[in-house]
């Protein structure tokens, strides 16, 4: 499940370009446990946040191979081994006839598997996220919200606040759920 952190700092920006510039500064300042909550994906954000490319394509490749093996296994098992039938003297292992189903099974496994794993990855392959009730910051509407979690090894509340303000963020807000959200 998604890790959450009870303490951290939020600050928001109004334009994707500002968010990108801020992300690069946060990355360069050495913060690790930070994230941007945005209404739409920003091109170039991965690099600005210092992330590697997503590993989902490797999952897709493996699943596609599984789909191919499944379809080939099923068709050859049925048509050659379990119940071979003679259709006009044609070979039992009629591989060209097995191609359409092999293709469909490949797409089926790869597409559905990738979709499910991407959704799970979005929840698990992440840094501690802000508590759910504090997420309503407009990040699904028109705000680009920077979150730095207190779990970051560099964390120091006063310094973090000064740093986020120095980025030009608006609505900077120190969060400590146990002690109540600070304005």
């Amino acid at each position, binding site marked *: 499940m998604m890790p959450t952190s009870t303490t951290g700092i939020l600050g928001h920006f109004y334009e994707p370009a500002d968010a990108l510039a801020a992300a690069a500064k946060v990355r360069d300042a050495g913060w690790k446990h930070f994230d941007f909550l945005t209404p739409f994906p920003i091109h170039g*954000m991965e690099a600005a946040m210092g992330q590697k490319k997503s590993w989902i394509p490797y999952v897709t490749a493996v699943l596609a191979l599984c789909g191919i093996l499944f379809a080939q296994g099923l068709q050859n098992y049925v048509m050659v081994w379990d119940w071979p039938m003679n259709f006009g003297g044609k070979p039992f292992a009629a591989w060209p006839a097995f191609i359409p189903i092999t293709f469909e099974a490949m797409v089926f496994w790869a597409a559905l598997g*990738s979709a499910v794993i991407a959704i799970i990855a979005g929840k698990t392959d992440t840094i501690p996220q802000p508590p759910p009730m504090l997420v309503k910051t407009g990040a699904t509407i028109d705000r680009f919200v920077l979150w730095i979690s207190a779990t970051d090894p560099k964390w120091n509340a006063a310094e973090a606040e000064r740093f986020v303000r120095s980025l030009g963020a608006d609505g900077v807000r120190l969060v400590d759920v146990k002690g109540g959200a600070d304005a």
Partner: protein
Amino acid sequence: MTRHEASPYATVMDDGQLTGRPIVLAGAGPYGGDLEVPEPLVTGGKTWADVDRDICMHAERFPTTRWWIAFSIALAFLGVLVFSLITLFYAGMGIAGVNQPVGWGSFIINFVFWIGIGHAGTLISAVLFLFRQQWRTGINRAAEAMTLFAVACAGIFPIIHLGRAWFAYWLVPYPNARGPLWVNFNSPLAWDIFAISTYGLVSLAFWYVGLLPDLATVRDRATHPWRKALYNAMSFGWTGSHRAWRHYESAYMILAGLATPLVFSVHTIVSFDFATSVMPGWHTTIFPPYFVIGAIFSGFAMVITLMTFMRGYFGMKHYITLNHMEAMAKILLFTGMMVGFAYSTEFFMAWYSGSEWEGFIFKNRAFGPYWWAYAIMFTCNAIIPQVFWFKSMRRHTLVLFVVSILVNVGMWFERYVIVVTSLHRDFLPSSWGMYALTRWDYAILFGSFGLFFTLFLLFVRVLPVVAISEVKGVMDPKVARGTPTRAAAAAIQEA
């Protein structure tokens, strides 16, 4: 001004001001020449918050009278479908028009027709995504929903065509107590099961993945705690975290890349149902591309029909602009010519092959007892879309609407011509016959439209009909941002 500053979407325009031609910025080019930028995709100077409100509004209020009227009509037709299907199962296939020699009738025609309708949705969402056609963002959500509902309609027909629909599960290869008796994997009919079910489920996954961020938007706008909880669960607690966007975008690209060959494979396999038989008029290598292009053609016509309603009744004019409609009209013109070319090629090959039967079938198609079906098909599909050579016609809402309906009539008759004319006069003149739809065939055909429109009308009530997060991404931040820039705020204060 640099190219970046002359952002293509920066200009605030109203829908009526769109011309479909690029805006020329004199002297703004990199070397002092003119710079041409496209017109904005979203008109009316909308902000990101406006997008949320305009699109979610329909799902957040009590339905309008017009919606209730439309829904009642759709539901009545759905009732006709349900009643006809019950009658069909009770009385048997005798009430349908199929008989010797025409053993494939309206059910197969409707199946191919509906699957074809679905193809435009995947084309818009996947192929246009890979080609970076940003205008797709306004229409892709509704078009993908159309795909799902069209596949749902299509799925009914092969099952009822079986005659004994309660044995439909025999088509699925699973270890069973009947031998086990397996399906024949050499048969295109078995390939169809895999193709259609894969297509339906992958389209669903693609559509749902695209919906996730928008469901979160609906959740964040919701006031009722149950509504909030429901949409939160449906969006899997989406927060817009960029660490999630990273995987999301990768998966979305992969789904587009997989859906693209999938959409071509599905109608190819449907065409194999015909092409791998030895019937003259069916046994041709042209069938796969001919079916695929016809599917895209009819699907785009259906998208134009639906978008006309969405522009008119749902006030989506700012998101689905005349420029969007014109772009779709261009695709209709292009695919219409491809379809016309395929019709002509078939005739040429029938003559050039020197096959007596092939030649007879095509003469019989165009000039035999079903000449009227062929004439409707050729007129609606190859001739009428030619009006879209004129820009004024491509931007005329009524013309677009009428042509889109006619194209779908023509495409239904294309399948009618293919299925019926090849079968009704085969190799043996003593077994020739005629085919006509019975009242139950008509009831099931029109009833399937009831199912389609019922599902579509429910969709527009509960989900965002335009892909909010994608539309936001193609708007200019300077226009769309939530709070005015500091400079603008200062200017307002001074005034």
